[in-house]
């Protein structure tokens, strides 16, 4: 069977304008795919790791929530940043991921936890990592260095998590006297809005010897989160690097 005469003679894209249009369409398709992919993967990662600390007001403490959340959730932005930057010089992976996470979390909280399980939205709002993601991306642009981004951006990632989420949680930390017991409004939400499968003792909040120092260790928690975020950022850059290499070619042969 003979090939079509135009098949060899003309390229699919003839002019720079056409090429530009094809590139835009390609960008759009990839962007939409990545939106859903990142919403799914980053959200599931968050549920499986941070879980209750992000689900409920009465888990958002000054020890575990503030340190564990940024440390665990910097991993995926770090690996993705490596891919986006090393292959495309694009510095928005962390912002895009944190935005996807917020979208996915609000969808889950609104339809699932509020719509099906009846929890009030002011008890189950998600924390935000968007400013942390912006800081990571913009630091990369300004320094063009993974190491400096890890040190400066990684620290900002942890510090901004506290600064940006304080205006959200602070109003729920007002004190209340509940039949002779001091509680915060967040604790009271947990008591009022019954979670059959979550007894009070199961909350992992303010545990550890630092508890003896009251609220002061909050800055230790942030400092610890910053150091760990730097380390996790650097480690997961390597994971991103693995995904950009072709050492999995042997798998294709199999």
């Amino acid at each position: 069977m003979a090939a079509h005469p135009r098949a060899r003679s003309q390229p699919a894209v003839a002019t720079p304008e056409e090429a530009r249009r094809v590139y835009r369409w390609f960008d759009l398709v990839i962007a939409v795919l990545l939106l859903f992919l990142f919403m799914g993967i980053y959200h599931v990662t968050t549920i499986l790791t941070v879980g209750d600390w992000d689900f409920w007001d009465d888990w958002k403490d000054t020890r575990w929530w503030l340190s564990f959340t940024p440390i665990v959730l910097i991993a995926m932005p770090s690996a993705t940043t490596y891919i986006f930057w090393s292959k495309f010089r694009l510095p928005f992976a962390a912002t895009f991921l944190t935005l996807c996470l917020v979208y996915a979390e609000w969808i889950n909280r609104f339809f699932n936890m509020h719509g099906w399980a009846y929890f009030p939205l002011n008890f189950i709002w998600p924390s935000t990592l968007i400013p942390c993601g912006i800081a990571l991306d913009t630091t990369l642009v300004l320094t063009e260095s993974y190491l400096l981004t890890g040190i400066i951006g990684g620290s900002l990632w942890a510090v901004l998590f506290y600064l940006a989420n304080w205006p959200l949680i602070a109003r729920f930390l007002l004190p209340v006297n509940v039949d002779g017991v001091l509680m915060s409004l967040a604790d009271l939400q947990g008591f009022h809005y019954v979670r059959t499968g979550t007894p009070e003792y199961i909350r992992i909040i303010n545990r550890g010897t630092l508890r003896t120092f009251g609220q002061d260790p909050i800055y230790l928690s942030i400092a610890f989160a910053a150091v760990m975020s730097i380390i996790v950022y650097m480690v997961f850059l390597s994971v991103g690097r693995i995904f950009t290499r072709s050492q999995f070619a042997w798998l294709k042969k199999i």
Partner: protein
Amino acid sequence: MDKRKDLAKRNATLLAATIVGVLLAFGTNALAHGERAQEPSLRLSTIQWYDTRWSADHVNVNQDLTVSGRFHVMASWPLEIPKPDRLTFLNVGIPGPVFIRTSSFIDGVNGVASMPLELGKDYQYKFTLRGRIPGRYHVHPMLDVQDAGAIIGPGNWVTVAGDASAFKDPVTTLTGLKLDLSRYGLAAVVRWHLVWVVLALAWLGYWLRKPLLMPRYEAVQAGEGDHLITRKDRIAAAIVLATTLVVAIAGFAITNMEYPVTIPLQSNQTKVPALDDSPASISITPEQVTYLVPGRSVQFRLRIANHGAKPVRIGEFTTANLRFLDSAVERPETGYPEDLIAPAGLLVRPDEPIAPGQTMQVDIEATSSVWETDRLTALVSDPTSRIGGLFMFFSPDGERSMVEFSSAIIPTFTERVRDGE
């Protein structure tokens, strides 16, 4: 050919209709939340709930419902189940926050915190719920035991009527702020989220306005990657980073000014004194306890000694939230859930008072299909075949004495154990 297609279409329709029909025929509503799924040893030998009362079976939105009663922590707690002497929490078995819990007390101590409980002791509890979402719900008291899980008490159906949007949860803070906890603070949370989303979209928009992947990939592959980040890009990054920092720091500072008094999340433990022990005026020695599988009947042969000053009669055996009553001695309270009372009751032989100082051998039968329907017969397959519960004795003047009972149990698959008696 058409005929064959028609036949295939008809067969497919028939098959689909059959599948739907079968599903509809065998599908039932899920009306409760798995209380019968718990292992028999967990229900028979851990917590025995009694004197449970629901203040109403119909409340409106914003109207209170009180659940109260007592529970006995079995002294013969199963070895395989973590004991409640570390931490427990009085909870409510309802399908989510369809009610809110406004207060909770155990022996008069506030039950918002977790607490250890003593084996062999009795506790009195009371909690108040407020109707929130209209519907018909099974309401149970429940005790969460650390590392063991939830041990659910008897349940009653309660209807909530009214308009969910009218629900209010008024609270006054120690700073004097009056608020509705069901809605408080949500607008501010959403506002802050939107601020950050807008900033993120601005940063993404800056990059997404020009072709991205293909031309940039080609440039990087060609070794031109370092030229892709322009001065303009750096200025944009600096502006966005500065804006982020300013917004975050300003938000933090303004919040501190707005809420100068905040406290960390509170987590505490409390101690609750158990109810006073009643004098041990009656003792029970099990001689033989069997479960007659074909007859759905648990048969006890007991040696009962009355050390008290009054004659007593057995009026009730309660276990796993089920009550077996000797109707000649005790009647159920009005409004108590019928499905928790065995219709055939308790057959006691000889059905006569045990005099003070007397020791009597008594045969008791607790016969009911509830052994099967409540899946307690699964105890046959438990690694530890034991039955536990509370025997309740009554004196002629109505005074009640309770005795914890625990014994090995032998299943009988073919014949009555004491045939001919």
